[in-house]
């Protein structure tokens, strides 16, 4: 009996609880344990990937109850990959938060971060739809804590909206769950798929509505138009490292869309044919465009990163909406890229904000912060999907996958136009922030003014930076991962193809989860 | 002695809790009695800090007598007040506020009195005085408020004095 699949959930949970219990007042200890926990999670994730690479769906039946009656975890290539991505991001974010001293600006940052990881990993591993809801709630509530960490008026207001909007989302999740249970009498994703495929026509309407609304819930998490409104304010107001960690949250939504469409809502089922793509694709296209427009129009670095996230999620959702094996593989390749790129961008935004404020406007020049500029520039390259980083390959793959689709012109057009607009926006921001001197820069009174602002404003000025080097280590680690994703695109794509083949083989998944012979 | 006091900070409470447990279990078995007794010991120890001074109940017998009197009064008063509510026009009611000076001093005793007053229909204890030496009682229909005050003092306070002080 291998307990590996449950470790990514239990380890962070136990660690967080342990931190709460024994080291509430020892930040240094918290840091040590938090980093050690992240490293351990990364190691576990590596083992999971290795384990999943045998092509089997590894099922872990919690409480030793067979699915669909008990809750099962299912480890396959896709979930292993997502857990690995989470672990990597967690490690970088932890290092950054320690380096930037963000964890000292409020209480319990590390515990919340570990809980966040628990929720995300659980969402990736569970094979039970209601259990997915529970993990959504865990990751959400941890994200609420990380979002409002360190307080401040703007952050709290944005936090309220973030929480309220997501509570609406969670409510919708339950409505959808209720409808699905009422129609099928089951909660397990594989079992849902099996039952929906055989659903009599008179029950189809309920299942359709439930399925559509559940996909909508995931679209909310993914921040697809028109249910993306929660993201810009929240992510922009969140502390940099929190926002960077949140880069994985939108992907949880996309993951869930992929997983559910493959496993629980098979398009082959007569009840569900063509249900998702009909609205998901237009929504994805609009998301990509609005994200790009937001990047171009952004007034602040954090908002720029937030809209960049939306833009890249839009692109990702296009692939998820098409839902062919090829497009799904492209989505799986683009997923880590989009996550890491958004995270880098949030870290870059935080680095800039810490040094000159958030506004994309003339200010103290950043010309001497070459490393920050490098992080921003490389992050921007990644986010805009320019070569040489993986975003370019990902977009190519998605476009390639859209070939032959009846709306290929729209899809290509939107991807390319959104790229251009994003590029323009990032170029504008980069040149304004890093190149453009403030009007009358160097005058004494101006500097005094700045200091006053810093003293009055929330955040930046307060704690001493324990280690700027660590922040750069974190940022460059993420960039290195992006570079690796580019260089190793071939193997990555092979993995993605295999993962998609496994994902689309709903029968094998159901055989494993439901212990069918 | 100190040990006993430490183990049974509120012996009456311990008994009460045991009784509550047995009643809740709704079966009079050894199991429930033992478990109830264990809780009757454990919980008062656990909550001792919240009930710092120990009121002494002089005589359990008096308690029973008091309870009987109160229950009887409740039934009687209920009927009386029901008649007032149902059959008397509001305009014919003679509500009154009365101040009941207290001889009781223990908060537990005063509370018991106030509770009794409230639970017997027709009177509600509404407030205590600033030093806790009088109760403010409202009567639904009291043509003679002083009589009500005297009856409260006679019928309830006197008995409570015997129980508590």
């Amino acid at each position: 009996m291998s307990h590996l699949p449950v470790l990514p959930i239990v380890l962070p949970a136990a660690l967080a609880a342990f931190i709460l219990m024994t080291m509430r007042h020892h930040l240094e200890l918290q840091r040590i344990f938090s980093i050690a926990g992240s490293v351990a999670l990364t190691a576990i994730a590596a083992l999971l990937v290795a384990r999943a690479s045998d092509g089997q769906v590894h099922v872990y039946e919690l409480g030793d109850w067979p699915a669909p009656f008990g809750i099962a975890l299912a480890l396959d290539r896709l979930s292993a990959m997502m857990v690995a991505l989470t672990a990597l991001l967690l490690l970088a974010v932890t290092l950054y938060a320690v380096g930037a001293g963000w964890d000292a600006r409020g209480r319990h940052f590390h515990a919340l971060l570990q809980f966040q990881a628990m929720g995300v990993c659980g969402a990736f591993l569970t094979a039970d739809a209601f259990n997915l809801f529970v993990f959504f709630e865990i990751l959400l509530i941890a994200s609420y804590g990380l979002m409002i960490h360190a307080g401040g008026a703007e952050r709290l207001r944005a936090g309220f909206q973030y929480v309220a909007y997501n509570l609406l989302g969670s409510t919708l999740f339950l409505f959808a769950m209720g409808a699905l249970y009422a129609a099928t009498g089951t909660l397990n994703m594989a079992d849902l798929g099996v039952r929906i495929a055989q659903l009599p026509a008179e029950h189809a309407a309920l299942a359709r509505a439930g399925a559509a609304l559940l996909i909508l819930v995931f679209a909310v998490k993914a921040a697809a138009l028109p249910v993306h409104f929660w993201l810009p304010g929240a992510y922009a107001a969140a502390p940099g490292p929190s926002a960077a960690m949140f880069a994985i949250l939108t992907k949880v939504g996309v993951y869930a869309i992929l997983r559910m469409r493959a496993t629980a809502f098979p398009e082959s089922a007569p009840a569900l044919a063509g249900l998702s793509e009909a609205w998901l694709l237009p929504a994805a296209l609009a998301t990509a465009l609005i994200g790009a427009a937001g990047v171009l129009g952004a007034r602040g670095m954090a908002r720029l990163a937030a809209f960049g996230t939306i833009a890249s999620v839009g692109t990702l959702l296009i692939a998820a909406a098409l839902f062919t094996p090829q497009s799904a593989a492209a989505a799986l390749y683009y997923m880590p890229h989009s996550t890491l790129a958004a995270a880098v961008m949030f870290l870059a935004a935080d680095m800039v904000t810490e040094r000159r404020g958030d506004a994309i406007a003339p200010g103290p020049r950043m010309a001497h912060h070459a490393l920050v500029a490098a992080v921003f520039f490389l992050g921007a390259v990644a986010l805009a999907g320019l070569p040489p980083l993986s975003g370019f390959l990902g977009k190519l793959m998605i476009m390639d996958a859209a070939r032959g689709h009846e709306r290929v012109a729209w899809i290509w057009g939107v991807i390319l136009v959104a790229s251009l607009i994003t590029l323009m926006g990032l170029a504008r921001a980069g040149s304004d922030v890093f190149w453009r001197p403030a009007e009358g820069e160097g005058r004494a009174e101006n500097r005094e003014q700045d200091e006053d602002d810093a003293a009055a404003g929330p955040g930046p000025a307060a704690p001493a930076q324990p280690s700027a080097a660590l922040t750069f280590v974190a940022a460059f680690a993420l960039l290195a991962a992006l570079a690796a994703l580019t260089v190793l695109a071939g193997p990555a794509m092979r993995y993605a193809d295999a993962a998609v083949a496994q994902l689309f083989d709903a029968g094998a998944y159901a055989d494993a989860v439901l212990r069918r012979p | 002695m100190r040990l006993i006091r430490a183990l049974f900070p509120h012996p009456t409470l311990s008994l009460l809790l045991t009784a509550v447990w047995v009643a809740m279990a709704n079966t009079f078995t050894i199991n429930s009695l033992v478990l109830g007794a264990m809780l009757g010991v454990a919980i008062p120890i656990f909550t001792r800090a919240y009930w710092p001074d120990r009121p002494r109940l002089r005589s359990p017998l008096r308690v029973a007598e008091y309870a009987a009197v109160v229950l009887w009064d409740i039934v009687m008063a209920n009927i009386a007040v029901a008649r007032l509510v149902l059959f008397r026009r509001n305009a014919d009611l003679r509500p009154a506020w009365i101040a009941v000076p207290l001889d009781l001093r223990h908060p537990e005793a005063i509370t018991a009195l106030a509770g009794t007053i409230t639970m017997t229909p027709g009177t509600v204890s509404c407030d205590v005085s600033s030093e806790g030496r009088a109760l403010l009682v409202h009567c639904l229909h009291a043509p003679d408020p002083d009589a009500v005050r005297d009856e409260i003092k006679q019928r309830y306070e006197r008995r409570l004095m015997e129980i508590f002080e």
Partner: protein
Amino acid sequence: MSQAAEILIAASLAVGGVFGLVGSYGLIKLPNLVMRLHAPTKATTLGVGGVLIASMLHSWFALGRFSVHELLITMFLFLTAPVTAHFIAKAHIHRRLSARDLPAPQVDRGWATLERPEDGSPDGDPGEKAEGAQPGGGN
């Protein structure tokens, strides 16, 4: 089940129902809050009481099951109802009455609710123990 038991149960139910109804009717009928305050006492005492007795009797006689746990409900109601009435009355006094509307307590300077503290507790000695007892300090 004996006829007597049945009659007893039915009577308890009837008594409970009547007093329950009268209690809530009084709430509508009586003209002001302190007077209305008298009404629910009937529901808590004889109203619910009648029903609880009926329930116990029903368990014993109809279902053959020993049952006393209904007594706990009565106990809780007897413990809590005076407190709620007390608090509602205090709220009413605080909101709508003044010392002139009430008889003087005579033995003391006034009624507790109407004592307007300057700031917070009338309980004197601020500060000194306060610091040690600050909540959250130890957590």
